[in-house]
């Protein structure tokens, strides 16, 4: 979805595509960008100077994620549980805690033609996706159109990806699971105050429940992509729908125009 939109819009606009699905980024498989820089993404985790510590336990008390254990004569830290909030080092009465960078992933930047591209990759075995998403989002300077590919669901990384967008395109499927997750996503984006619309992927004979929901909730169904072997084949070969079937490029351009009308601004965000 995000890649097709990017490929359709880049003819006439300055487009930045940010792949914020950092647990399994895949936009690059379709965009095939030239990656020009790679940098590390790290969060600050506590480093304890045991000689300064008097084991008062304040750091452990304030840690919402139990990433520090204070014992009678030592302090144990669990960097893999740390969210990097900095409360422990800030509140330590003896300045015994400094912040040490702890690598959780990487940021890759590049481009394809006049398309600006950035993607985040969470390292294998790491659970803290949100800081990587945040880093990827910093790569947009806000000019032109920024398309953000978010992961599915409504977890913290999704909220981080979607927050601050002018519009959120919710891509769903006509199944009970699709409808369940869509309803949750709608609730989330509404709470964030972001207008939204729906794309039904693999649309076919069983769209009725989904369409009834959208009607009831007054959410526009902006596009339907049918369950079609030809489309699936293109996808499996890493070809966007906009590139593989020219008539779809026109539809994506029309979709983008609708989104810009609905958002009232020339900026949008897509979510898978």
């Amino acid at each position, binding site marked *: 979805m995000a890649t097709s939109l990017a490929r359709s819009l880049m003819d006439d606009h300055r487009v930045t595509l940010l792949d914020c699905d950092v647990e399994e980024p895949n936009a690059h498989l379709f965009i095939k960008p030239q990656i020009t820089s790679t940098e590390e993404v790290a969060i600050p985790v506590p480093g304890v100077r045991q000689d300064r510590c008097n084991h008062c336990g304040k750091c*452990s008390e304030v840690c919402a994620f139990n990433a520090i*254990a204070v*014992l*009678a004569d030592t302090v144990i830290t*669990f960097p893999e549980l740390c969210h990097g909030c900095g409360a422990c080092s800030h509140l330590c009465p003896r300045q015994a805690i400094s912040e040490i960078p702890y690598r959780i992933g990487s940021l890759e930047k590049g481009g394809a033609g006049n398309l600006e591209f950035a993607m985040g990759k969470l390292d294998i075995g790491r659970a803290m996706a949100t800081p990587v998403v945040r880093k990827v989002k910093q790569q947009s300077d806000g000019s032109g159109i920024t398309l953000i590919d978010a992961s599915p669901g409504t977890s913290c990384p999704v909220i981080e990806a979607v927050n601050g967008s002018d519009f959120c395109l919710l891509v769903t499927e006509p199944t009970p699971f699709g409808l369940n997750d869509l309803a949750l996503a709608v609730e989330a984006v509404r709470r964030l105050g972001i207008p939204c619309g729906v794309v039904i992927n693999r649309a076919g004979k069983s769209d009725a429940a989904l369409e009834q929901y959208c009607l009831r909730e007054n959410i526009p169904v902006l596009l339907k992509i049918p369950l079609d072997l030809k489309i699936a084949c293109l996808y499996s070969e890493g070809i966007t729908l906009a590139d593989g079937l020219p008539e779809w490029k026109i539809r994506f351009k029309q979709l983008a125009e609708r989104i810009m009308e609905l958002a009232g601004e020339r900026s949008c965000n897509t979510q898978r």
Partner: protein
Amino acid sequence: MNIAISASGPTLDSEVNPRFGRCEQFIILDPETMHFTVLANTGQSAGGGAGIATAQHILKEGIGAVLTGNCGPNAHQVLSAAGVKVITGVSGNIRDAVEVYKKDGYSPSGQANVGDHFGMGRGRNR
């Protein structure tokens, strides 16, 4: 020295709870006198790191050993660093388990016997 037992109920006739970090309560017991107190586990409801929170909570009771069913790597690390013997694989009636412990019938486990999030139930880790 006192020992902590993850408990499914508030008496010595309760079962040993198979979970450490997510266990509802601990029985803190002096094996010599069999005098005990019941300690509610405030670490149980932690969003993450329940084993670490629980370990710190029970360490305040000045214990020398923990009897439980299963203990994950983080809790094991905290308890071991505090010099507490961690005995896993314990099940059944608490009074019986304490008797076995008193006769040196258990050997401490040198490492965690289960992985992270064991006590959260299968498939509910996320």
